[in-house]
């Protein structure tokens, strides 16, 4: 599955979904890859990764079947 992008992260990437490179197997690696491809993401106050609709730690592994999303600082309410 692709990587879903929301809010400011979507604006920075310019697209709502990214293809996940096959070699990325955990959250830390995904973040590093995102920062490399879109350096502006480093300007976000925070960038969380959600795996299967739940906030994930850097150590969490990611498989091809997982629903992965990039969560910039939320601002609901």
């Amino acid at each position, binding site marked *: 599955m692709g990587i*879903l992008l*929301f*809010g*400011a992260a979507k604006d920075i990437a310019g697209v709502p979904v990214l293809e996940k490179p096959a070699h990325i197997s955990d959250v830390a690696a995904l973040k590093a890859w995102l920062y490399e491809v879109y350096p502006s993401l480093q300007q976000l106050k925070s960038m969380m990764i*959600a795996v299967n*609709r*739940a*906030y994930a730690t850097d150590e969490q592994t990611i498989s091809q079947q997982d629903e992965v*999303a990039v*969560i*910039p600082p*939320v*601002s*609901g*309410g």
Partner: protein
Amino acid sequence: MEILINIKETITVQEALDFIQSPECGGEVIFAGTVRNHTKQREVLKLFYECYEAMAISEMQKIAVKVQEKWAIQKLVMLHAVGDKYPGDLAVVIAVASAHRGIAFDACEYVIDLLKETVPIWKKEFFADGEIV
């Protein structure tokens, strides 16, 4: 605890009231968040709310679980609007019904605080001066 969670274009306080008011509960506390016509002295034309709906619903359910662990609340409503919202429009409604008003206040404030921290909803502010943030 009975729970109503909803994310949609238009929300009303009335639907929250309809869900929580019951002869079993004595105290209902409602928080209504409306779009303001200014942010830090700058005129706001509109907000646009987007959300990661499946995860937002899941995070709202997690908040409900935490409320249930902390307090004896009978009913809990969490409503959030999405799309274009103009000054005066409702953005969020939290409603809590309980036999005791003290915990209803505590729970309602806890829910809105946590919702703003954890639920994946984002707003874009359209200012009168043309900036979009």
